[in-house]
């Protein structure tokens, strides 16, 4: 087992993400989170990024206000684990666009999705940076397409009654035809799919 768990911890000791590649009970998980949090928060800068915890090793690194913590087997390579952590941060940075703690808090599921593309069963799954993000954007696009379909099908009765607002989806600002939402930077990938959906409804 390469990586046993990944925990994102705020400087105040709040868990921002906890991904387990082992099946453990909630109690066991909580114990590990608690123990590891105390260990990691007690470290000062200028100390090395490795710790020993029970029969495993803990590799952590602090990025801004967040600690990224990975538990590994005692025979595993600490240095490459640091690389994995760094890779994860890079991916999130690209995905969220200059990621900050709040992004992860409010879109925690996205952080999990990215991790799921990077690691599987605790093993590194994809060493290409580009590929991981491509997969996530594919999934997002599929989700968007479904979501749009649904929204419009729900609003259809109202939209038909209000002339002039026929393209308003009920949530954001009035849409400009042809442009995607500006919340993420993957508009190009999504536009092609979503666009085709719109054609059906607004054509």
């Amino acid at each position, binding site marked *: 087992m390469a990586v046993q768990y990944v925990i994102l911890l705020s400087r105040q000791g709040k868990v921002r993400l906890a991904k387990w590649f082992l099946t453990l009970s909630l109690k066991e998980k909580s114990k*590990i989170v608690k123990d590891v949090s105390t260990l990691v928060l007690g470290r000062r800068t200028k100390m*090395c*990024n*490795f710790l020993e915890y029970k029969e*495993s090793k803990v590799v952590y690194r602090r990025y801004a206000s967040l600690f990224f913590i990975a538990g590994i087997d005692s025979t595993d390579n600490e240095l490459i684990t640091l690389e994995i952590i760094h890779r994860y941060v890079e991916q999130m940075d690209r995905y969220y666009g200059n990621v900050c703690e709040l992004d992860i808090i409010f879109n925690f599921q996205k952080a*999990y999705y990215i991790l799921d593309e990077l690691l599987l069963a605790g093993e590194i799954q994809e060493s290409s940076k580009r590929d991981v993000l491509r997969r996530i954007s594919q999934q997002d696009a599929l*989700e968007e397409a479904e979501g749009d379909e649904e929204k419009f099908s729900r609003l259809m009765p109202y939209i038909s009654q209000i002339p002039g607002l026929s393209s308003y989806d009920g949530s954001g600002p009035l849409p400009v035809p042809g442009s995607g939402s500006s919340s993420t930077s993957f508009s190009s990938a999504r536009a092609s799919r979503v666009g085709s959906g719109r054609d059906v409804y607004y054509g």
Partner: protein
Amino acid sequence: MSTGIKKTPLFKKSLHDLIRGIRACKDSEATDKYIRSAISECRQEILSQDMDFKTMAVMKLAYLQMLGHDMTWASFNVLEVMSSQKFAQKRIGYLAAMQSFGADTDVLMLATNMLKKDLASSNHLDVAMAISGLSNIVSPSLARDLAEDLLKMMNHSKPYVRKKAVLVMYKLFLQYPEALRSSFPRLREKLEDPEVAVVSATVNVICELAKKHPKNYLPLAPQLFNILTTSSNNWMLIKIIKLFASLAPIEPRLKAKLVPPITNIIQTTTAMSLLYECVNCIVSGGMLSKEDEQLATMCVGKLRIFFEETDQNLKFVGLLAYNKIVLTHPLLVAQNADVIMDCMDDPDLSIRERAVELVVYLVNTDTLFEVVKRLMLQLIPQTRDQVLPEHYRIEVVRRILNMCSKDTYANVTNFEWYVAVLVDLVKITEGVKDVGAEIGAELQNVAVRVRSVRDYAVGAAARMVTDKDVMIKNPRVLKYAGWVVGEYALYLDNPEVILDAMINIEPQSLSHDMEAVYIQAVPKIYSQYAGTDRVPWTYSHAQEILLMTEKIVAYLEKYATSMDIEVQERSVEFLELFRLITLAIKERPNDDMDLTSPALISQVMSSMFNLWELNPVSAKAQKRIPVPDGLDLDEEFNPPAVYSESEDEEEALLREMVMKQQEQNSAKNVNSAAAASVTVKAKSKKSKAARDGAPSSEEESEDEEEIERRRQERRRRQAEDPYYILESDKVVSKSRRSRRESSSSELSGPDDPMKNEKLDIDAIPIMKLEIASIAAPVTKKKSKRRSQPAHVEIAREETFGDDGAADGVDSDDNMARRKSLAARGASQKKGILRVDARGLENYDLDSPDEDEADRQEVEKFKAEILEARQKAAKAAEEEVMATHIVVKKKKKKAKVVKKVKKREGTNETKPAKEPAEKEETTQDTEETTQETTQETTQETTQETTQETTQEKTQETSQEKADENGEKNVEGHEA
């Protein structure tokens, strides 16, 4: 979620609301309250028919689960969301499942079909999600049912799915090792996959598998080697090198093949992680034997780069690697002692610990002073808030003791310095748990082994005993200090001061084991104080002694009622002695004319403690004492009475208990006898000598009868011999009296037991040998000149028998036992972070498919059972037809009776109902039922058959279990 779901105002709370709400809570109490209400809302929403509601509730619960709140109650609803048609909902469902499902989630068995469907989906994103989900939730039954589907996915057209399928296989194998056999060929194919990510995934899986059972994967070595030499992907290279590290130890020829490419990587790579992995592979792959100077030099040299960087991480892993290499090449590592020593004062404690660990191997006589000084300085807190954590301080103390005592104090040239170090350690480790005992043990060891500093060590111990600070801050050390001042009371300048200090301690300030040591030490010091003639026995002196004796009596009285049995026994025994002494002193005439000290003090007391000197004895020595002839450890002292046939279970149980106790008793007896006595030892040797047929010149004249007579005599004597019980046996577990130059014994007369025994012992050649070899270093006078500290005499441990040979066997035995114990321990009490891979560890691809054989066997039995049942049913029918009587049979015993009767020729079908008859036949039941199935004639009833078949199946399962057990053992051995 950027879909419309969360923004629909129909929800009480969206995920964003929830998160905001939690963040708005001021304290933990408010948060708890808020979360509780949120969860109860979720309980409502999750039951909704609207999938959006349900999904949102599941999502919120997943968020709360991350914060440590249970959501297992919602497992079924999670499953519902997982099976949604919409990708967005499915995605959330899978996320929640991955977060919350565990091995005990019972709804998992409902998930099989859904997962099958998702795996077969035309949308590769669905497939990928199912695989990712499966990697977290796979259970043995899911693994069995989905193995085929996943096998297909390994050949999916999209590499994205292929790599995921390959990776999830490892999780599958963990749950269901049998899948390994069917999927191994395909796994092997994947090493040749055109897509590098798939190859990398395959390497990852094989690497993990090979850690458990490397033998299976040796055939892959050529393919893997090809990847090693051609790939430039560092992620994969690291894994493949790790994989070779598992394979190399079981195939020594790999080493020659691997060293060139790995050397090449080491010399060319710029990636430290890869470099580190290569060095690790060379070390843990067993490629670094003593002869491989060149390879080792390269590794050690490359690792030095790690220390020249400012990166703390590199220092840390560098130290880890050095710690491994130092075991085979200490000299090479020692060349880098400068950088390692620098790490000893690193601000990072993890680095310091590793460095200190390493330094233990690197110290020599020249550096020991310096290193110990630096470590001691660390223990002294500079400022109040700079106190190091306790575990580190303990570690440092242990390492100091470790490096000094290594190889029987090979590095210590000045023992006065060492004693001073120990004294300082006691002072600076106040409040550090347990190390007091370890420091004390060292002090004791030095006092026993190094005669030249014994007076110094005794002085140090005396200062500890009289120091009130030590009592408060580091009391554990007093157990050993107390022993030292007692045993070597001869070296005390002022025994009365020590005595006063020891008997005036506050009750309850020491633990029971320490009290016991003190109680033992007080008489020893007393005999030194009162028994020697350093002060002439005058009336005034006698009064002083009397006063002291009375004080001691008072002191012992306090402990005579101690709850601790050892303390109580010792104090009661000595109490009687001291009361006698008090009387003896009082009986003396009250003037100064021609006074001698009472014989009780001057002779009896001193002979109790001062006859022999204690020498260090090897901890293994006792085990080597052969069991004497005529001593049968299995023989019962008190054979149990013959029980009648009709004994019931309770009696049997009782008897078993009694036997167990007897066994224990006999074992204990042998133990104590062996531990305590020289005599048993002598006896045993004698018997050994006799067996070996190598009688000495003296022994030749002795015939068996004489020996026997003496043995009897000795046994009789031992019964009354007050010296026979070794008083300080408990304290001085390592030491035993064996020095036999008892010149001081004034009691020796013609029938002195000691003397007689001594003769006895000397008559035995082996004992002579031992005395010669051991006495040699000890008998050297303690007039060692301190100006030549390099030649301090350190008493070796005494041992018994052929040291070398026995040692080897012994340690091998022990190792094996420890290994097996460790293995068992690991399987019984596994850490929560350890993956349970026992199935894989024992899974041998080369072994025949035992499972198949088992299955066939089971089928066979099933058929037999069916056949027997049919026959039985038929027979019962016929029977009923024949007699026209419906017979009610409640117990098979009755039927058996009936059957027996029939066989005897009685054609009555009347069921036997008399209880007496039942009783009679019960014993036969076992046999007859067996016969019944074989004969299966008209009389057999269905019930009987069932009984037998049950037995049979039980047997089969038992056999199977046995086979498995054997397989396990094989696996472990392999």
